[in-house]
């Protein structure tokens, strides 16, 4: 079979199906799922061979058709026959419903071109005149002054230049800081190191202490449970 291979001329999978049905001269009410599925898939395959991207809607329809077809292939149970008929009826109804609107667009096109034969114009602007008070004739300086005032006001309106900086604190930095503190103070309370209460700071500080312990740079002592923990540089 010879296909005109282009999807652009179709408005969607329903449009393509209608085209295929018309091509093969079948009555819409007598379509066979098996045949139409084959034709549809052949068409889609041809497009794939040409490396055309196929809109997902077309693939969805392909999947639906395959599902219908595979149901036909299954051994028949008693109720199955009815279901098959339903699938087919639903598809036929969708096609007919779609065809109804597709057909009517011809009328819309006619109406559109007929309406395009005549022109109207935009509404006129009706505005009340603004009365200008000429009694108080100002000189140019007043205007300049006013403008300068306006510019100053504008300046005020401008948002202050604020930049939001997020200070990143690294464990390494904090380690150096803690060692500095220990060098001057010799011994500090564990809690003293948490002088700022924000979460990243607390976490980094805690990690730094662990790091310093790991590297054997500090000693941590606690006399009893719940006593103060003290930290000092190792070997001092």
């Amino acid at each position, binding site marked *: 079979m010879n296909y005109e291979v282009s999807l652009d001329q179709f*408005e969607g999978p329903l449009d393509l199906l209608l085209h295929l049905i018309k091509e093969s001269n079948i009555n819409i009410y007598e379509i066979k799922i098996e045949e139409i599925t084959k034709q549809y898939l052949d068409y889609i395959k041809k497009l794939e061979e040409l490396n055309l991207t196929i809109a997902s809607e077309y693939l969805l329809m392909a999947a639906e058709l395959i599902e219908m077809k595979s149901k036909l292939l299954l051994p028949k149970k008693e109720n199955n026959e009815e279901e098959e008929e339903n699938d087919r009826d639903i598809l036929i109804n969708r096609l007919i419903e779609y065809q109804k609107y597709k057909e*009517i667009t011809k009328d819309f096109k006619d109406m559109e071109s007929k309406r395009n*034969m005549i022109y109207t114009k935009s*509404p006129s602007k009706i505005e009340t005149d603004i009365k200008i008070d000429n009694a108080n004739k100002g000189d140019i300086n007043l205007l300049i002054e006013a403008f300068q005032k306006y510019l100053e006001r504008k300046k005020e309106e401008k948002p202050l230049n604020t930049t939001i900086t997020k200070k990143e604190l690294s464990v390494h930095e904090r380690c150096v800081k803690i060692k500095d503190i220990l060098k001057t103070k010799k011994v500090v309370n564990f809690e003293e190191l948490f002088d700022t209460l924000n979460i990243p700071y607390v976490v980094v500080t805690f990690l730094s202490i662990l790091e310093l312990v790991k590297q054997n740079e500090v000693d941590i002592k606690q006399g009893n449970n719940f006593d103060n923990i003290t930290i000092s540089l190792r070997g001092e």
Partner: protein
Amino acid sequence: MKNKAVLEGLLFVVGDDGLKLSQVMDILNLNMDEAKELITELRKDYENKNRGITINFLGDTFKLTTKKEHKDFYSKLLQNEESNILSQAALETLAIIAYNEPITRVEIDELRGVSTGYVVRKLIARGLIKESGKSNTLPGKPTLYKTTSDFLDYFGLSSLSELPKIEETDENNESIDLFLSNRIEQKNNDDDLEILD
């Protein structure tokens, strides 16, 4: 007759916004019959070959328009005239909305078998359809869409009742030939001023 002159001026001023019959009645202090009479008279004056404009009834309003027999002359003013007509997708979507309004986008998608989000947005931008509240019956209360008076004007209609008749498909139709023969005859409606008759 002064009223006729004022009416002509009014129609000129409102342009493509158009003038409702009720506005003509209010402004000129006329009853409905008098207002219709006045419009008909003015329209008759315009029928004169020496006049370049006429009155059309579009989107439920009266509008001054040029005459279609002069179209060729106006075309010479235009550079790319055809660029502005609606695409097939837009026409299908509009037809579906017009015959089913108010309707949700998903329902349009279902009827067309493709996603129409983009087309719907473009139609809204062109003022041919608008949102019309939310559906109370469907889950998630999706937005409903309907056509505007600009839609009617665009297709030269005065109201939705002038849409070409679309046959309800009869489920018992056994033959496609029958279906095709049921197809709407194209409506020949050259006289847009039916309301005046």
